[in-house]
């Protein structure tokens, strides 16, 4: 049976070899599992044993300066169903019938989702209110899953849409203040780590550690909802009336730089947001800070302020306007080609004389004019604290392509690009006594533990208080006796300047309309507001005096009442209607 010894030894050797081989293979496999793939399996075991859940932090509210909420967050549920997860068709029908009243949708629709072929979960309804979602979760229906989510709501509707911006599905700010102050608003998510059993339930007396979430801070804006509503309505009305392509209105507090209202069009509707439509991308930007335009004659405020400050002229300095002037190889003409004759600097502003502005710029010299343009904040962002702000375009003598004719055209706001925010900030400096303020829209950030107040910041003094007073008096005359007459509010003294600007295009200016603007402030005795109105391509009339100045008047009139500012003269005020 055993066979010859040599044959036996061969068999034994083979057996030993197989055993050794198996043992080595086993050792190697064990080494692979225990050493080489140790980390992977340890991770798998940990994932099975430990549960780590993220606890959402509550996103802070955005409030207006008077304490009214503009954006707030509530918790909702997204209800999913897993097809074919119900044990029987009868069970699926019962589930659908139970869910239908809670989701306020037909049972057939839910049953359809439950019976669909496939494995992927189907979203039956998003944004189910907290109470209903909680009830559904507690019912523990087979194949039904409730996922907690956040919903951003806007109690004031579509107020300040481009300024506020919006959040994505993950509650992360995507545009506007929601994005720029996302860190403050979002807070920090908490975590819950615990040991779980095979069914996913926490093990009693097992390890459990919770790091509570830190709720986001509430932001208080400088915007006042009444003023914001007012400017949005006026802009909407003006765009419809003049069939304009768009526009911007900003209201600023000149002494602090606080933005009281800021509206621009075209824009989007916060309450009907559809992020899937890429065509809407154009509408999401805040045009008041991103879009540049040539300000036109409003810019004469800067030129004349600089000349007054440098004592090159005074309000009574005279010059001769012949309707046009040929200088540096180009002809400068008045806006209506009319010759104003001998006029003072005040008349220059009242008549919005381009020839006069060019004469003043030439008198001032290129170094000084561009120095003041820079001092007034043009050519650089205002640092308002919002992303996407443009700095405008100022071509100076040191830049390539600058010609002496630029000096003359820049003096009346041509060949220079500014943002509406830069323009109103510069005019506010003239209004407040000569200080360039940094504009700001966020007044406070209030978190459960701390309160951060954003104080007004003085950037620099650009003109003296005396020059400011002189300019204010000249601009008052523009409104009361000059081209800004349609902006006059009886009983009050307001200051301002119109500006009708051509729209540049490659190689010149477009013939498809103008930009009608007006920038002013009031009351001149103690300026409480500065308003910039900019209407793009009005179809009925191109002139700022006919388009923008009446809008300024309407807003100023309502602001004066809202701010409880008494008229300068009660006798005149009684005649108002």
């Amino acid at each position, binding site marked *: 049976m055993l066979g010859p010894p040599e044959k036996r030894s061969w068999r034994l050797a083979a057996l030993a070899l197989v055993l050794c081989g198996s043992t080595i293979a086993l050792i190697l496999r064990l080494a692979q599992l225990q050493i080489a793939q140790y980390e992977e399996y340890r991770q798998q075991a940990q994932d099975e044993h430990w549960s780590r859940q993220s606890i959402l932090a*509550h996103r802070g509210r955005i409030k207006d300066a008077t304490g*009214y*909420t503009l954006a*707030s*967050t*509530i*918790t909702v549920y997204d209800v999913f169903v897993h097809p074919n997860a119900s044990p029987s068709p009868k069970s699926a029908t019962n589930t659908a019938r139970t869910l239908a009243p809670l989701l306020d949708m037909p049972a057939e629709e839910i049953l359809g989702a439950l019976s669909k072929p496939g494995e992927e979960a189907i979203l039956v309804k998003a944004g189910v*209110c*907290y*109470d209903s979602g*909680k009830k559904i979760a507690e019912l523990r229906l087979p194949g039904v899953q409730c996922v907690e989510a956040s919903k951003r*709501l806007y*109690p*004031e*509707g579509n*107020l300040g849409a481009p300024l506020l911006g919006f959040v994505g599905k993950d509650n992360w700010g995507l545009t506007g203040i929601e994005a720029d102050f996302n860190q403050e608003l979002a807070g920090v998510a908490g975590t819950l780590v615990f040991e779980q059993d095979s069914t996913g339930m926490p093990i*009693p*007396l097992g390890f*459990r550690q919770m790091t509570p979430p830190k709720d986001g801070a509430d932001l208080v804006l400088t915007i006042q*909802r*009444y003023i914001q*509503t007012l400017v949005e309505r006026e802009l909407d009305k003006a765009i419809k009336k003049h069939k304009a392509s768009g526009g911007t209105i900003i209201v600023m507090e000149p002494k602090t730089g606080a933005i009281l209202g800021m509206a621009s069009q075209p824009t989007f509707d916060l309450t009907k947001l559809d992020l899937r439509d890429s065509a809407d991308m154009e509408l999401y930007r805040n045009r008041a800070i991103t879009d540049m335009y040539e300000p036109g004659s409003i810019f004469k405020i800067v030129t004349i302020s600089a000349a007054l400050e440098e004592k090159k002229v005074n309000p009574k300095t005279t010059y001769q306007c012949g309707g046009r002037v040929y200088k540096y190889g180009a002809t400068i003409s008045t806006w209506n080609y009319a010759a104003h004759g001998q006029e003072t600097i005040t008349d220059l502003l009242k008549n919005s004389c381009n020839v006069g502005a060019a004469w003043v710029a030439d008198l001032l010299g290129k170094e000084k004019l561009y120095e003041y343009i820079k001092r007034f904040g043009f050519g650089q962002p205002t640092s308002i604290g919002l992303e996407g702000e443009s700095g405008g375009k100022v071509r100076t003598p040191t830049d390539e392509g600058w010609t002496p004719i630029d000096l003359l055209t820049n003096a009346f706001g041509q060949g220079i690009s500014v943002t509406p925010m830069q323009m109103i900030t510069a005019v506010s400096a003239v209004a407040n006594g000569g200080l360039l303020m940094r504009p700001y829209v966020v007044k406070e950030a209030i978190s459960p533990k701390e309160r951060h107040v954003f104080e007004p910041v003085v950037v620099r003094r650009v003109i003296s208080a005396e020059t400011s007073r002189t300019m204010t008096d000249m601009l008052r005359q523009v409104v009361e006796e000059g081209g800004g007459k349609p902006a006059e509010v009886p*009983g009050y003294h307001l200051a301002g300047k119109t500006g009708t600007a051509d729209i540049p295009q490659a190689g010149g200016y477009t013939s498809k309309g103008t930009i009608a603007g007006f920038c002013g402030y009031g009351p001149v005795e103690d300026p409480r507001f500065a308003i910039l109105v900019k209407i793009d391509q009005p179809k009925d009339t191109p002139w700022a005096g006919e388009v923008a100045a009446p809008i300024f008047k309407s807003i100023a009139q309502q602001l004066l*009442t809202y701010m409880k500012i*008494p*008229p300068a003269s*009660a006798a005149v*005020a*009684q005649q*108002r*209607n």
Partner: protein
Amino acid sequence: MGLNRFAVGDRARRLPGRSGLTALLPTTVALVSLASLLLLVQTSRVTSAGYDIERLQEIREEWKQKNYQLEYEIDALKALPRIEQEAVTRLNMTSATQYVYLKVDMPSQAKSMPEIHPPTYVESELENKPAGWWGKLLRFFTLWKDIAKST
């Protein structure tokens, strides 16, 4: 069984030191049992307290969420478009088209001050009021205060 018990007892009587051991064993068992029971009770209490805390945390979270919901509802009720709609549709209000400012002379400082009413009693009346033992005590302390003040 009875025989065995007798035998053990007999053996215990015969072997000194064994009786102490036999007494120690049940005592130890009893103590260990008691300690285990205490531990069990304590553990179950801790577990139950843990569940209670978890449940209370859930309830707190639920109220917190309901609070956010209510805050939003309040905000929506205070919203300007809603107030305007109420004013126009329910209260039939219209926007003001004419403003009339009236010049009102500022009242003088003296006239604007509220009239000072004299006290309805005089101090002497208080003094003449009949006083019991507490009145005497009060007067004693008042007197004491006056003395302290004068010194």
